[in-house]
C-alpha cells in the first residue's frame, strides 16, 4: 500500500509538533500521566498540563514527580491497577529511567512514552540525534520512529493500540526528533475524538492490582523460571510485528492516512541504491531521491518505522535486488564504529542468500545539520561501491578535520 496522507484541508491547523502529540495523548484518554520536564520534551507535558487544567482529560491523574526515575516508576503502579499510562522524556531523562524500563517491559505494562530524541551528555548537548533511545534498545520496549509531525500524532494512537494488544502487552516508545519535529509548527490534522474512540478500545488487562483480590506483580523468578519470562517477552515482540502492520492498516481505514507499518518504501521497486534511515531525515532523503530520479538514477529509500521489533523479513524483501544498501544512523556504538541500524541490517542479511554490500554512515550527531549536499555525497560514494566494492564499511560523516 502506498503512503496516503489524505489530509482534509478544512481540518488542518498549524500547531507545534509537541502539541500534536499532546493532543493525540488527550484523545487516547489516558488515566495517568506522569510528568518531569526536560528539553526538548517539555512542551508535550506542558500542553497536557493545560488540558488537565481546562478539564479536557476526564478520569485522569496528572502526577508531578521529582525525577524521570519516579516518572516511570509511578506508571508501574498506575499500569498495574489497569490505568492507561503515559509519559514523555528524552536524553538524560531516558537514561535515568534505564532500570525502570526493564521493570515496565518485564512486568508487561503497555505504557506509552514519547521519546523526543536528543543527544546524551557528555558533552552536554540539547539537540537531536538517536543515541538516547537506541541505547535503550534491549530493554524490551517497542520503538517506533516518526518522520514528521502528522506521523508522530498518528503514531501515538497506533502505539497505544499495539502496546495494549493482549498478544503483545509491551511498552512502547514513540520517538520523534528533538526540535526538528517537537518545536516545528506545521499544518496537521489533529486526531478526531470520535474516530479515536472507534480506533482504540478500552484497556482491560486480565490482571489488575486490587486490594479485594490481592496478587503479586513482578514476582521473584529464580533460575528455574527466569528464562521463560524472557522467552515470552521475545514472543510478544514477534507478535508485535504483525500488530504494527495491523494498527497501521486499521488507522488507514478510519483516518485515511498511512505511512507503512514496520517500514515504508519510496522508489525502491527498481532501485539499485537503497538508502535506509529513521526519523525526520527521511524528508531530506526523499527530496534528493526525486532529483536523482529525474536524472534517471535508480535510487530508493527504505524508511524504518519500527526499530523494535526489528523488521528483518520486511527489510530483506526490499533490499534483495539492490546493488548497494546505505544505512544512515544518528547514533554510534563506540568501539564498533557502527550505528545500530547499520549493524542490525547487516546482521539480518548474513546467513541468507542475499548478497548485497551494505555501508553505514553515522550522521547528524548532537543536532549537526544534514544538508542535501551530504546525502548527495553519500549517494555518489554508493555508486562507487557498486563499481568497485566497499572501501570503507562504516564511517562518520562531515567530520570537521580542522577541529581535531
Amino acid at each position, binding site marked *: 500500500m502506498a503512503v496516503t496522507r489524505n489530509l482534509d484541508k478544512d481540518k488542518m491547523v498549524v500547531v507545534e509538533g509537541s502539541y500534536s502529540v499532546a493532543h493525540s495523548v488527550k484523545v487516547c484518554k489516558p488515566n495517568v500521566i506522569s510528568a518531569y520536564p526536560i528539553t526538548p520534551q517539555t512542551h508535550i507535558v506542558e500542553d497536557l498540563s493545560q488540558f488537565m487544567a481546562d478539564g479536557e482529560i476526564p478520569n485522569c491523574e496528572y502526577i508531578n514527580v521529582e525525577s524521570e526515575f519516579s516518572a516511570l516508576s509511578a506508571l508501574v503502579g498506575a499500569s498495574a491497577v489497569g490505568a492507561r499510562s503515559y509519559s514523555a522524556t528524552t536524553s538524560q531523562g531516558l537514561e535515568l529511567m534505564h532500570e525502570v524500563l526493564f521493570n515496565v517491559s*518485564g*512486568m*508487561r*505494562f503497555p505504557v506509552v512514552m514519547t521519546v523526543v530524541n536528543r543527544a546524551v551528555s557528555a558533552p552536554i548537548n540539547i539537540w537531536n540525534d538517536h543515541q538516547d533511545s537506541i541505547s535503550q534498545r534491549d530493554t524490551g520496549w517497542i520503538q517506533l520512529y516518526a518522520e514528521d509531525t502528522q506521523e508522530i500524532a498518528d503514531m501515538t494512537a497506533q502505539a497505544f493500540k499495539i502496546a495494549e494488544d493482549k498478544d503483545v*502487552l509491551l511498552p512502547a516508545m514513540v520517538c520523534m526528533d528533538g526540535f526538528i519535529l517537537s518545536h516545528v509548527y506545521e499544518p496537521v490534522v489533529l486526531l478526531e475524538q470520535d474516530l479515536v474512540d472507534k480506533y482504540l478500545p478500552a484497556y482491560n488487562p486480565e*490482571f489488575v492490582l486490587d486490594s479485594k483480590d*490481592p*496478587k*503479586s*506483580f*513482578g*514476582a*521473584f*523468578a529464580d533460575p528455574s*523460571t527466569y528464562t*521463560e*519470562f524472557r522467552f*515470552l*517477552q521475545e514472543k*510478544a515482540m514477534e507478535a508485535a510485528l504483525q500488530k504494527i502492520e495491523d494498527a497501521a492498516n486499521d488507522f488507514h481505514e478510519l483516518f485515511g492516512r498511512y505511512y507503512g507499518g514496520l517500514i515504508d518504501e519510496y522508489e525502491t521497486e527498481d532501485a539499485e541504491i537503497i538508502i535506509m534511515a529513521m526519523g525526520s531525515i527521511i524528508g531530506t532523503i526523499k527530496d534528493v531521491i526525486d532529483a536523482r530520479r529525474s536524472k534517471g538514477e535508480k535510487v530508493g529509500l527504505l524508511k524504518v518505522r519500527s526499530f523494535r521489533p526489528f523488521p528483518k523479513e520486511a527489510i530483506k524483501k526490499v533490499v534483495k535486488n539492490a546493488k548497494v544498501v546505505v544505512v544512515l544512523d544518528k547514533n554510534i556504538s563506540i568501539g564498533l564504529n557502527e550505528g545500530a541500524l547499520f549493524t542490525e541490517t547487516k546482521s539480518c542479511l548474513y546467513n541468507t542468500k542475499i548478497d548485497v554490500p551494505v555501508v553505514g554512515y553515522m550522521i547528524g550527531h548532537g543536532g549537526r545539520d544534514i544538508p542535501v549536499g551530504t546525502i548527495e555525497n553519500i549517494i555518489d560514494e554508493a555508486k562507487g561501491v557498486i563499481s568497485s566494492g566497499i572501501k570503507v564499511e562504516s564511517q562518520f560523516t562531515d567530520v570537521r578535520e580542522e577541529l581535531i
Partner: protein
Amino acid sequence: MKIIPGGVCEPGTTRVNKTGGWRTFRPIYDYDKCIKCKLCELLCPEPAILPKDDGFFEFDYDFCKGCGICANECPKQAIEMVLEEK
C-alpha cells in the same frame, strides 16, 4: 506451574519458599531473663517471632534468617545467638 507474563501470582508464595536455611546464627531465648516486653517481636523484620499463649515468644526457624536484631535490641540480653552447626 504455568508462568503468567509479568510474573503475576497469588499472594503468600513466601510461605512456600522457606528461608531459614540462610541463617548462620540461631537465636535462642532464655525465658528466665525475658520480661515479655515484646521489643523482639516488634523489631523482627521477617516477622519470624511469634507470640505464645503464656505471653512469651518463640522463633519461627523456617523463616528466621538469623539477622540478630532481636538479640541486639533485647534490654535484658535474653536472646543468645548461637552458631548453626550440622
